[in-house]
Structures are given as structure tokens and as C-alpha cells.
């Protein structure tokens, strides 16, 4: 008879040694931190450098008052770590927190207050905000309650996809916003489970990486404002205000009310992987939800304020994040905390990478000075568990530190390339004299990333922060009145152009131009070297009505409207074909910056620049036209992209192709759908091979290749 696998191995440490508060206990193990189910009980371990005593507070699930308070015996303390195993607990039906006693002296950085019950920084589940949008009972003493959970999810054969960075097509999405709209048709709108039902859409679109706005537990109800026009409550919708770093947001799970958000999120990740899609999390380590001295005490403030936060000599909070406090990221304890957290998401959730919000802060010392060799960034770059994850920095912060191109990369870090965004936007709207910088940006920004390769650059034109693509071509100015801040929030440097009318219009000419401008943007994005990132909804012209800072808008301003999938099918098709084209042509994904060197056997360099005349690009101050030809990396095709931001047509002389090849038209945004783009591989041969007339404000993409006898007809 085979022994059952569910039978426990007998262990000496499965027996109590003490009794505290009516519970049988024994000294716990300092590591790992947090609450861990062990034979017969739960082991609790928490760090506080300056606490004079620590008490474990236990609640029956959902009860307002504690069921027990267990002070850690002195002999259960190792260094500054308090660890205790409590036997006989039903781990599924308890919540827990800590009271830390110690000095209250803000000037020296200490804010201990034993009246406060503190959330465990290592809590893997949080209760208290279980269902999105439910108004919390703020009278309850302990709002964000730590919970114990097993980490025994069955991943079956899920393994990291390890898609090479240069092959990524990133899709930036909000978990709730993606399926919350009534048109989504999913079983549980606005949840991980809902997103899971939309995986086929993502597959069809062709993206192979989804980057999720923050999913660590945050409090959507912590926004005190309301919409001044409608009176509707505003939320913290984006969630860049973390309450608990190890816990997935319960309100994003259909099963959050049952405490099963961990399994629901893991199931989504598992299925995304099965569909060939990696998952990157947008993480916010630069600040926490505890705000400044006026803010709430949730966890870190009460456990070890002076360790976790950057403090002025007077004990106030440095504010390099613009949100009240700044995490003391390079403190040895805090950097280990960040590392533990990321390891947890990689090991226990199979996350493939991270995008770090305001990452410049991660390179600052305790007094805010930028460090030449920030230990945290080095630690993350070399960590064994994180070794093959993608690390992407938003390489600036609210304190004025701007490190795009200079972020301490250790051969690992990529960056959101804000300069790419600004340059391409400027070119698209018709600013003169941008062709020189445009060339640099679409070639993978060698001025910024020489030695790091093109995949150090995450290229994007739009992101959650700022205008959506449809608004970029419909508004000159932001319209953020609905945020209740007098239109003073959100960026003012949008480099947007409304095509002649501010906002929606019935003018067919303007609407056609806007459609073309969106296609121009997508065509440039997906033919640029570097990692392209698409904002969710841009493929179907999602509008935020000119609001460029919808952080608080949990409504149709932010949600993906699935009716637009049919309404804007032409733009969606254009996006799909562009992504497919990128996947087909390795020269667009080359990791080495092009140098103009000749390619053997092709008679053309790896990159060449052209204008109206072949081989004669116009870099002058009033130029608005640039063409680029790439070839010779992985296949014999030549890809020619002509970008005309001028309001007039231009006759293009095309560069001559090496023997046996001819020019074929893949895309011309000046053509009406369905003639605006073709299926990659089914491009149509040009009959006038030496010339092409590019229309006003249009992008043309040609492929120089051997003629395919299956392709018939000429333009």
C-alpha cells in the first residue's frame, strides 16, 4: 500500500513550547518574513528595528474586534525580528496585524504608536477592500487586514516564455478597465477572470506581452474628490498608491469576496502564458499609500518609519514622488524588501517582468542624492530569481531627476523612452526640422542606448499617463475638468494636434485626417527599432474626451468600449497587420543599432535614409519628410518606410533594389481601407517601380523582395 502523499511528516517543531494569550505557541523562524502555514499552525515573522515590543493581533475573519492579542516573548526575538508560531489556528478564517510599541519622536523619525494595528508588509492577501467600489466602513479600527494563505497553486507545466526582449510587442492595460464596460460581454466584468476571457482578442491582435497597471492591493476609495460637473465620486482608479506590496488586489478578482484573488490572478497568468503572452507588472516602489505626516498609518510608518522612508533632518517626509512620501529604497533593509517582493511575484505568480514607476527614485540615497552606483538597481539586475525577467524603468521622478539614456542599467534595464514619444509626436503634428531626431529615435535611439542595444528602448507614443491615441489627434489641449482639480492636473506638454477642431466633429475631412494620423503613428511605432508599447484601446480609437490624466475616472472615460472593435474595425485591422508585419521582418527588431554598413550580397546598407530623391534625405530645418530603408537581418527583404508629415504630396524616387527584387506595397495610410494595408507576405508589386506618390500626412511602407508568383495584380 502506497503511503498517502497528504500525510504529514512528523516534526519536533510541530509542538508548542509556551502558552501566550490562551494560545499554544513556540518560537518561530525569522525567515521567511510574513505569515506562513507550518505543521500544526502558522508562523508569524515581522521586522522592526526600533520597536521595544511587538504584539500579534488576531481577528476572526471580518470581525471588528480582535479575538486575541499575543505579545511576542523576548526569547522569540532574533536580532530585530519577532517570530512566533501559533498552533491551532484556522488559517482561512483569521485576519492578523501587529501592534508595535516604541518611541514616538517624529524629529528623529520614529512614529511608534501601539494603539494602531499595522498591516504586515509581507501579507500575501489583504482583506478589507474585497469588492471594488464598495464604500468602506472607516469607523473600523483596522482597515487593511493581513490574511494567511497557502502558496500551493498548481502551475502544471507553465514555464517562463522568455520571449527575447527585441521580439516583444507590449500592450499596456488596466485590469478593470479592459472588461468593465457593459459591452465586454464577459462573465465577471472588470476582473482577472474577465480579462482571461479576452485572451483570444489579445492573441488575434498579435501582442505577446501585457503590461498591467498596478495590481498590488491599493484602496480605490482613497480619493476624496468628486466630479465637479456631475457630483459623481472619483476613485483612485489607476492604483499608483500601494497599500500592500505582496498582495494582489482583491477588488480585481471576481472571487475577491472569497479571498481567492491569488488563485484567480495566477490562473489568468497561466492562461496568458499558454497563449504565448508574457505578463509585466507596473510596480510602484517609489512611495506608499501612507502619504506624509498627515497621511494614514497603515504599516511601514508604525513598524519602522525611519527605515522605510526618506526623511528630512527635521523628520519630515522627502517628496520626490509628488505623492507625500518617498521610499528609502537604497537602505539595506528596504532594498531587501523590494527584492523579496519581486522574487515573490516571479516565483509565486510567474511574472515575466516589471515596469518601475518613477524609477529614478530607486537610484537615490537616503537624503535624496542620486547615487552613482545604486545598490538596489544592481541587486535587481543580478538577482538569481529575477535573472531572466524584463526590468523596465520609467527613468524620471517628480523631484526633477531625468535619466532617460542614463539610467544605471547594469546590462539589464530597459527604459520607457520619453524622447521617442516626444519626437514622433512632434513630427506627426507637422513640426518642422524634426527629421534628424526622428531618424535617431526610429533607429533605436543610439544616442541614448549605444552599447545597450535597441531593446533598451521601450518605444511608445501613448500610455495610461497622457492622451490616448485618438485624443492625441483630436485635442490641442487637455480637458481634465472632470478630475475636480480645475484642469490643473495632468501634463501640459502633449505635442498633440486636433486636426482643425477641438474634440469630436462631424466634418468628414477632419475625421479622415485623424484616422490617417492614428495609422501614421502606429506605422511608425511598429517599424521602429526598440520594443513597441501600445496603449490598450488605441487600436480601436479609444477616447478619453481630451482628459490626459484619468487616474480617478472609473467610468467610460477610461474603460475599453468593446463596441468599438466593430465600429473601428479598419483601425483594428491596420494595427493587427502592422504587428504581424513587425513579426515577419527581423530587420525591424534588430538588437544592434544600425550603422549604415553594407550588407553582403544585398548591395544595400543595413539602414539608409532617403527623401524625395533616393539617398538624399532632407535634414534641413523645414523638412517634414523622411524615408528609411532597412535590410539584411534575417531575411533578404528590404523594408522601406516613407513618413510624410507635410500637408502636401511628394513624388518619391525609390532606391534601386538589388537583382531579382522589386518594390511591393504593404501599407499606404493615404489609401482608404481596405487598401490602406495588406496582409504581410501578400503585398502588391508596384508597376512603376522607381516612383511612388506619397499623399499629404501619410506613411507608406514598401517591401523590396523577389516577386511572388502567387501575388497578382498591380496598383
Amino acid at each position, binding site marked *: *500500500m*502506497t503511503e*498517502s*502523499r*497528504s500525510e504529514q511528516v512528523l516534526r519536533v517543531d510541530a509542538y508548542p513550547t509556551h502558552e501566550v494569550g490562551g494560545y499554544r505557541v513556540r518560537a518561530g523562524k525569522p525567515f521567511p518574513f510574513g505569515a506562513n502555514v507550518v505543521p500544526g499552525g502558522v508562523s508569524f515573522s515581522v521586522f522592526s528595528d526600533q520597536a521595544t515590543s511587538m504584539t500579534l493581533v488576531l481577528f476572526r475573519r471580518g470581525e471588528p474586534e480582535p479575538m486575541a492579542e499575543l505579545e511576542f516573548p523576548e526569547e522569540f526575538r532574533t536580532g530585530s525580528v519577532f517570530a512566533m508560531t501559533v498552533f491551532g489556528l*484556522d*488559517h*482561512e*478564517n483569521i485576519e492578523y496585524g501587529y501592534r508595535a510599541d516604541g518611541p514616538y519622536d517624529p524629529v528623529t523619525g520614529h512614529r511608534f504608536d501601539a494603539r494602531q494595528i499595522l498591516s504586515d508588509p509581507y501579507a500575501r492577501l489583504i482583506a478589507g477592500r474585497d469588492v471594488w467600489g464598495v464604500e468602506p466602513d472607516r469607523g473600523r479600527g483596522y482597515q487593511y487586514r493581513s490574511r494567511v*494563505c*497557502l502558496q*500551493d*497553486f*498548481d502551475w502544471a507545466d507553465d514555464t517562463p516564455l522568455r520571449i527575447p526582449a527585441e521580439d516583444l510587442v507590449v500592450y499596456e492595460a488596466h485590469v478593470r478597465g479592459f472588461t468593465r464596460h457593459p459591452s465586454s460581454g464577459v*462573465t*465577471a466584468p472588470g*476582473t*482577472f*477572470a474577465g480579462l*482571461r476571457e479576452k485572451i483570444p482578442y489579445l492573441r488575434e491582435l498579435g501582442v505577446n506581452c501585457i503590461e498591467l497597471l498596478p495590481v498590488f492591493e491599493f484602496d480605490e476609495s482613497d480619493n476624496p474628490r468628486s466630479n465637479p460637473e456631475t457630483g459623481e465620486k472619483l476613485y483612485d482608479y489607476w492604483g499608483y498608491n500601494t497599500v500592500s506590496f505582496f498582495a494582489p488586489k482583491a477588488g480585481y*478578482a*471576481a*472571487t475577491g469576496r*472569497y*479571498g*481567492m484573488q491569488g*488563485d*484567480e490572478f*495566477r*490562473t489568468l497568468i*497561466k492562461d496568458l502564458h499558454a497563449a504565448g503572452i508574457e505578463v509585466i507588472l507596473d510596480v510602484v516602489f517609489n512611495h506608499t499609500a501612507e502619504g506624509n505626516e498627515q497621511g494614514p498609518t497603515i504599516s511601514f510608518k508604525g513598524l519602522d518609519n525611519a527605515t522605510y522612508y526618506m526623511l528630512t533632518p527635521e523628520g519630515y517626509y522627502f517628496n520626490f514622488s509628488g505623492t507625500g512620501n518617498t521610499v528609502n529604497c537604497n537602505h539595506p533593509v528596504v532594498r531587501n524588501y523590494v527584492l523579496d517582493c519581486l522574487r515573490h511575484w516571479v516565483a509565486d505568480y510567474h511574472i515575466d517582468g516589471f515596469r518601475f514607476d518613477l524609477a529614478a527614485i530607486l537610484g537615490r540615497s537616503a537624503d535624496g542624492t542620486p547615487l552613482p552606483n545604486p545598490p538596489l538597481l544592481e541587486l535587481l539586475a543580478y538577482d538569481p530569481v529575477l535573472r531572466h525577467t524584463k526590468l523596465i524603468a520609467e527613468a524620471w521622478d517628480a523631484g526633477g531627476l531625468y535619466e532617460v539614456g542614463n539610467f544605471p542599467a547594469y546590462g539589464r534595464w530597459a527604459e520607457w523612452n520619453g524622447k521617442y514619444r516626444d519626437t514622433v509626436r512632434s513630427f506627426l503634428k507637422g513640426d518642422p526640422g524634426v527629421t534628424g531626431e526622428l531618424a535617431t529615435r526610429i533607429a533605436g535611439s543610439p544616442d541614448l542606448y549605444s552599447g545597450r542595444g535597441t531593446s533598451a528602448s521601450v518605444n511608445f507614443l501613448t500610455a495610461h499617463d497622457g492622451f490616448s491615441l485618438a485624443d492625441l489627434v483630436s485635442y490641442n489641449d487637455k480637458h481634465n475638468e472632470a478630475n475636480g482639480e480645475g484642469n490643473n492636473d495632468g501634463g501640459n506638454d502633449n505635442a498633440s494636434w486636433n486636426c482643425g477642431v477641438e474634440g469630436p466633429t462631424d466634418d468628414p475631412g477632419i475625421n479622415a485626417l485623424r484616422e490617417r494620423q492614428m495609422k501614421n503613428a502606429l506605422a511608425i511605432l511598429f517599424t521602429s527599432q526598440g520594443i513597441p508599447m501600445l496603449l490598450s484601446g488605441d487600436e480601436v480609437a479609444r477616447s478619453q474626451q481630451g482628459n490626459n490624466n484619468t487616474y480617478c475616472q472609473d467610468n467610460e472615460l477610461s474603460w475599453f468600449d468593446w463596441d468599438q472593435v466593430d465600429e473601428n474595425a479598419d483601425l483594428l485591422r491596420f494595427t493587427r497587420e502592422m504587428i504581424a508585419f513587425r513579426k515577419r521582418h527581423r530587420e525591424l527588431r534588430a538588437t544592434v543599432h544600425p550603422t549604415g554598413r553594407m550588407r553582403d550580397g544585398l548591395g544595400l546598407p543595413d539602414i539608409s535614409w532617403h527623401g524625395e530623391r533616393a539617398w538624399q534625405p532632407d535634414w534641413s530645418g523645414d523638412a517634414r519628410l523622411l524615408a528609411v530603408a532597412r535590410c539584411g537581418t534575417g531575411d533578404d527583404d528590404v523594408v522601406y518606410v516613407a513618413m510624410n508629415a507635410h500637408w502636401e504630396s511628394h513624388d518619391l524616387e525609390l532606391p534601386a533594389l538589388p537583382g531579382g527584387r522589386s518594390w511591393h506595397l504593404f501599407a499606404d495610410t493615404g489609401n482608404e481601407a481596405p487598401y490602406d494595408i495588406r496582409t504581410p507576405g501578400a503585398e502588391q508589386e508596384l508597376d512603376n517601380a522607381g516612383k511612388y506618390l506619397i499623399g499629404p500626412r501619410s506613411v507608406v511602407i514598401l517591401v523590396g523582395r523577389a516577386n511572388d508568383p502567387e501575388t497578382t495584380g498591380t496598383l
Partner: protein
Amino acid sequence: MTLSVKERRNKTATVLVATGEINSETSGALLQALLPLVREGRPLRIDLTAVDYVSSAGLRTLLVVYREAQHAGVAVTLYGVSEEVRFVMSATGFLDFFSAGEAAAAEAKAKAKAAR
């Protein structure tokens, strides 16, 4: 909320009928009832018609039973799963394992029929 279990045997399988909630308090007893049945080696059906809630610990218990059954080469199928329980099982991925079991059982049945 408690859980009661009743066992029924027919020609082809053993059926365990559960009534109540499967949670951390009751799943231990369920496990004790199920494991001996798995070891008997007969196909096992778990009837959840009268179960309106299965907690995280409950789902894990069912999966442990399923794993034990796999190990022993015994077919386990779930019956009468309510819509809510099915949704929770689906959202959390547990249903995938049992669906696979059900599919395998159906396939085996079809094969057996074809062989006759």
C-alpha cells in the same frame, strides 16, 4: 456551517454525496472520507448538488483528492456543481483539472463503447 457526507455504491462507481459547505473547518473530514475510497481503486463520483460554497481550502482539498486519485490511477469526477461554485472553480483554475478528469472519463467511456 457543517458538512455531512453520505456514501453510495453502484455497479460502476462509488458516489459520495456532500451536503453543506466545504471550507477549512469541514474539509479535513471530507478528506478523511474520500481518501479511503480513492485507495479502494473504484471510480469515484463526488456529488456536490447540495454544496453551495466551497472555500479556498475546500478547493484545495478536492484537488488533493484528485491528485491522490491520479497517483492511484482512479477516475474522480465531480457532479452537480452549482453555477456559483462552478464559476469560482473556473476563475481560480481548479475546474481545469476536474474538467480534464471528466473529459478523460468521457473518452474512456466512449472507447469502451466502441470496443463492444
